[in-house]
């Protein structure tokens, strides 16, 4: 009797042992089959002039991806970034978008300048894809139900923020100077600014223009402004031009209050502007002196990683990637339309500095801030 039990026991043990071994092998086998990486596209102007914004944007995305991957990725899948360079050429930009579709990459962060999407919007909307732009603020893209989601407020909001400041300063004589080379962007902003100035303060602003490729036109414009002698000047140009204009006009008109848009808000502005840009009002996408713990960590991390100061491009890109990850997680898959709907459904996002929202058109409604340059640094205007 006992022998039989022992034998049976032996057999049970053996079966169990074999079972365990088999299971272990199977588990190891399954475990070895790592899930494929989740590919996410990043596209922007990565080389040449105008690449500053896209590069800092890409870096913001990289920061976010590293953070996500360190926590085990999204649903156990490691994120792999596929970066493409649109070379600041709309034709190349469209080609790169098509390349993404060919590679079956349908979630894309980019582009970073409006010129790169305006002509390929039809293509983007015709494809099963979702494009998340951290920095394109063109008003013409507002209020459309498309495959394009933005993480920056429309340009019109900049004009609003600046006019509010002018109102507070009670400046009733303001002129506008803009770069003709960038008409698509500058026109709308200038018109909005002029309109708001009229509406809110009843001030008619005279508009001057120059061609950044023809330096003599700038000289002429500045002379005309000196003659008009306004109290404020809104310069719609890139950082370097703004710095140059400030250096050019300040010695003659030391009391002139300068205003510049977000476009000009790069490290270059202060570096190149020197003392001439002191007191200049600058539209900002972030408050660099923010005491927000989250932002301080982000800023420190960015500096340690890239040796540079962070800017709104990198911050918004970081937030866009984080929002995308959150939407993928919540949607439980990576179908672009599902993710788009999730993003719209979530609607309120906890950003690094503050909350921001995305409306049903995928448009962002966050507030621009106005900063003043004081002793070579941007300070928030209270």
């Amino acid at each position, binding site marked *: 009797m006992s022998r039989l039990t022992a034998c049976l026991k032996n057999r049970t043990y053996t079966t169990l042992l074999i079972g365990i071994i088999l299971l272990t092998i199977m588990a190891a086998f399954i475990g070895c089959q790592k899930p494929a990486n989740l590919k996410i596209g990043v596209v922007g102007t990565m080389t*040449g002039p105008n690449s500053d914004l896209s590069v800092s944007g890409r870096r913001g995305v990289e920061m976010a991806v590293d953070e996500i991957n360190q926590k085990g990725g999204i649903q156990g899948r490691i994120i792999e970034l596929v*970066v493409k360079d649109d070379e600041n050429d709309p034709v190349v930009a469209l080609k790169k978008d098509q390349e993404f579709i060919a590679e079956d990459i349908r979630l894309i962060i980019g582009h970073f300048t409006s010129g790169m999407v305006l002509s390929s919007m039809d293509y983007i909307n015709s494809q099963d894809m979702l494009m998340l732009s951290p920095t394109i603020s063109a008003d013409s893209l507002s209020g459309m139900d498309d495959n394009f989601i933005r993480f920056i407020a429309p340009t019109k909001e900049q004009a609003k923020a600046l006019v509010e400041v002018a109102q507070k300063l009670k400046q009733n004589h303001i002129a506008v100077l803009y770069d003709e080379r960038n008409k698509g962007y500058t026109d709308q902003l200038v018109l909005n600014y002029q309109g708001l100035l009229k509406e809110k303060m009843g001030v008619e602003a005279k508009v001057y223009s120059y061609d950044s490729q023809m330096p003599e036109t700038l000289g002429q414009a500045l002379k005309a402004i000196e003659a008009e002698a306004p109290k404020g000047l809104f310069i719609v140009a890139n950082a370097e031009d703004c710095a140059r204009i400030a*250096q050019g006009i300040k010695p003659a008109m030391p009391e002139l209050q300068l205003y510049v848009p977000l476009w000009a808000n790069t490290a*270059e502005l202060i*570096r190149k*502007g*020197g*003392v001439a840009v002191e007191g200049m009002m600058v539209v900002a996408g972030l408050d660099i002196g923010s005491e927000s713990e989250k932002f301080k960590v982000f800023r420190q991390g960015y500096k340690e990683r890239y040796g540079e100061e962070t800017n709104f491009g990198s911050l918004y890109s970081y937030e866009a990637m984080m929002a995308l990850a959150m939407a993928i997680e919540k949607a439980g898959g990576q179908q672009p339309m599902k993710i788009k709907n999730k993003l719209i459904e979530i609607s309120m996002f906890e950003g690094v500095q503050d909350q921001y929202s995305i409306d049903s058109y995928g448009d962002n409604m966050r507030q621009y801030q106005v900063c003043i340059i004081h002793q*070579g640094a941007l300070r928030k205007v209270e």
Partner: protein
Amino acid sequence: MSDMRKQRSLKWQLLKGNTLIFSFLLTIFGLAVYFIIYTEIASDINTRNLQLVRIANDRVEHFIEMPVNMIDKMRDHLMLENGELNKKIIDTYLNTIVEVYPYIDELKLIDAKGDVIVTAPNDGGFKEVNVAYEPFFLNRPIGQQINWSNVYLSNKTYNPTITISANAEGYLIVGDLNLSLLENMANSDSNESLVSISILDQYGNYLTDNDPKKVEQRLRHPDFEIIKESVENRTSLVPSKSNENILLTGAAIGEKGQWYLVIAEDRTKLYASLTKLTQAMVGAFILIAVCSLLFLYLNLKKAIHDLELLTSNTLLISEGQYNVTAEANQFHEFQELANHFHKMAGKVEFRETEIRHLNENLEKLVAERTAQLVDTNHMLEEVNAQLEEVNAQLEEEITERHRVEEEIILINKNLEQRVAERTTQLEQSNSYLEETNAQLEEEIEEHRRTVQLLEEKDGALEIAIRVAEEANLSKSQFLANMSHEIRTPMNGILGMIDVMVMTQLSKEQQSYLKTIRSSSDILLTILNDILDYSKIEAGKVEIKQQPFMLHDTIQDIYNLFSASAKHKGIDFEIDIPQSLPHCPVGDEKRLRQVLSNLVGNAVKFTSEGCIRLTLEVVENDEQHAKVRFTVKDTGIGISQEDQLHLFNRFTQFSHQDGKKTNGTGLGLAISKMLVELMGGQIGVRSQIGKGSEFFVEIDFGLAQNQEKELGDYKHEKVNDGSNSLKGLKILVVEDDYTSLFMMKELLSMMKAEVSVAEDGLAAIKAVENDAFDLILMDVNMPVMNGLTASRKLREMGILNRQRQAIPIIAMTAYAMSGDREKCLDAGMTDYLSKPIELQNLIRTIYKYWMATSNKDAQIEIMAELEIASAQNNLPMTDDDEVQEKQFFDNTIRELMKASGLDIDTCHFLMRTYVDQSLELLKDLEELLSNNKNLDAGVLLHKLKGSSGNVRVNTVMELALKAECAFKAGQMTEVQQLMPLIYEKILIFDKYTSAK
């Protein structure tokens, strides 16, 4: 257990052992070879990498050294120009340097303020450029130190650029260097396994790489963390995170070791020779293993064959075939073993024979032993028989036992039978009990019938009570009627007393008359109380819900009692809160009655101290306000026992000194009933000798439109903003000119279309000629009175403009009961008693005007009318002149209030009245002197009517007295009253002419 162990096969054991040992040795050998070759390759790679690092370091140092040398030279040059800075020379000098050295993109000379003095090559920008916040200026070098910036993308060349800065004679030399010197680095070595050589800055950003895009795009090395770690740990050839096949070797380069050289190599290509060697070794290993195993197997097969032969021989021997011989074996060891077996078989055969002999002996011994055993068996059988006997005895005992058991069963049966009998007896007694029960139930039924009878009687009793109550009600009704009937002659008596006082009487007579007057007053009060009480009890009192001015009511109460209180030496104080609603909705008259009763009592029962009327708002919301009125006195107080009956009718309590008080004892009962009718409550707290506190709580509605308060009222026309009677066509039939004027004015003001007729006949003519919506008809008129005219109009079937029977509203000064019936019998629609109250008039007109009228406007008018009543509480003075004026003013105010007309119209109205009355008095005097008595009565009636209409009440009263006296035939009295009337009218004449 030991035999359970599985026996091992010699063949497999040998094979296994051999293979293991063989493999082990071969593996050790293989690993040794592999390791030696691997070390060799690694050292080769290291040597080459070191060489690369050295080259890179040289390049970087060269890259650093060149500008440093250049700057030193520049410093010297600047020093030559010491003291005076020649811009032109410096400009030329710097431009030359930029042209000569291709790795310098730009040179700048900056002064201490950050202003740029010279830029080479000249960028065509603004002359006065300030760079105070450029990093190179913010972090200026100290002394002879040279500062190096991080690598950044130049906004002029868009190439990675480094800015160096150095001090020179108080100026700052700033140079932008491109990285072209480092660029060729990556292409310098062309090793097969080398994938790329890159230089990274301290943050991991590419400075150079085989792929220039990485630099252009300012990418950061994806494995920078791994590289940094490997440099710190001095490890090399670490696998890349993104591609396992790429091995990275990092090294710190540069002067301070802040940059990194990264060599990336292809693992497959790098270890190609090692892989080949491993493959060859594995091949050899397998070949050797297969051959040796085959050899071993063949040898073992032969040995096993020999062994098996031996085994089969052994089997034959064991079966007794001892003559087997050994066969030819291939191995001599086995041959020897076979020989030994053969010898062993011979010896075994011999021993077997010996054993057989021994066996035979043993069998013999066994047979003997068996015989002995048979004997023993017999003995045992005998013992067995004895045992069986004992057994039989035992069985007998068992039978006996069975018998006893049966007997017990029998006894048991008997017992059961007895139980059954007993049960039957019990059942019988049970049925007896049930019978008794039925009898009891019958008795209960009897009882119930008695109760029913009682209930029926009770019903009869209730009916009797109801009859009694009805009788009581009839009694109250009777009382009411009686009181009313008594009141009319009572008024006559009072009037006559007043008249009599004015005649020449002796002092004694006057004192008698005074007593009669006060007794009559008391009697009238009693009558009024009884009438009130009866009315309430008969349910004839309706509580009105109209907006009124509460403040005025309180003021009236104050005016009413302050004099008597003062007379008794008591203070009378009123406490009104701010939150008191100005215009609550309720029955002002009844409230006034209740409060007068309470305050009157307080005055009556208080001889010293004070009386305080306090108002409090207990609850308050948008539509209701609950107000508590408290009357507190310091009077004699009421005992606890008396408090219980205080509100019962006919209850009176004696003073402490036994003195009785005047009155019916109905006051508080009436108050209680009125308060309850108003939905409120009344109560008392009192202590003998200390005083009493009566309180009343009433929940008032609040008028929706309260904005128009007392102070805002400025004699505005009644219907400003409203066109309440617009479109209504009214015929006013009235012989009295004052009344007619007033009605016409009033109705026109209400935007009604008004036509007039002086008597019934004129009215009929007017109706024949025109269509009206409504007729207001005086009853007592010359030519044709109102009743006759109405009858005729109904006979004619006169319709209004809506083709419906025209409403005829009677206006009469006859205050007798039955007047209403007379009017209605004559075909009139409704009845208004003179003096006409504006409110009543409008309400009645609205009632019969079925057209679309604005009800809100109506309410507004009502409210305004109420407000108008708040006009007349001026203090009285002793001065006759002032008193006269006040009397006149009060009358005008009264008229304004009643008519809703403005002050000017009222003055005008009063003037008309005075003129008419003076003329009437003149006529009257003439008639009286001519003894044309009949007409005089008519004139007196007319005077009474018109005086009432304009609210000259004194004249109205005097005219009434005169009329009564006239009807009684007491002409002297009429004569006496005439001057009094004349005097009063003259006052009005004076003030109206003054106006």
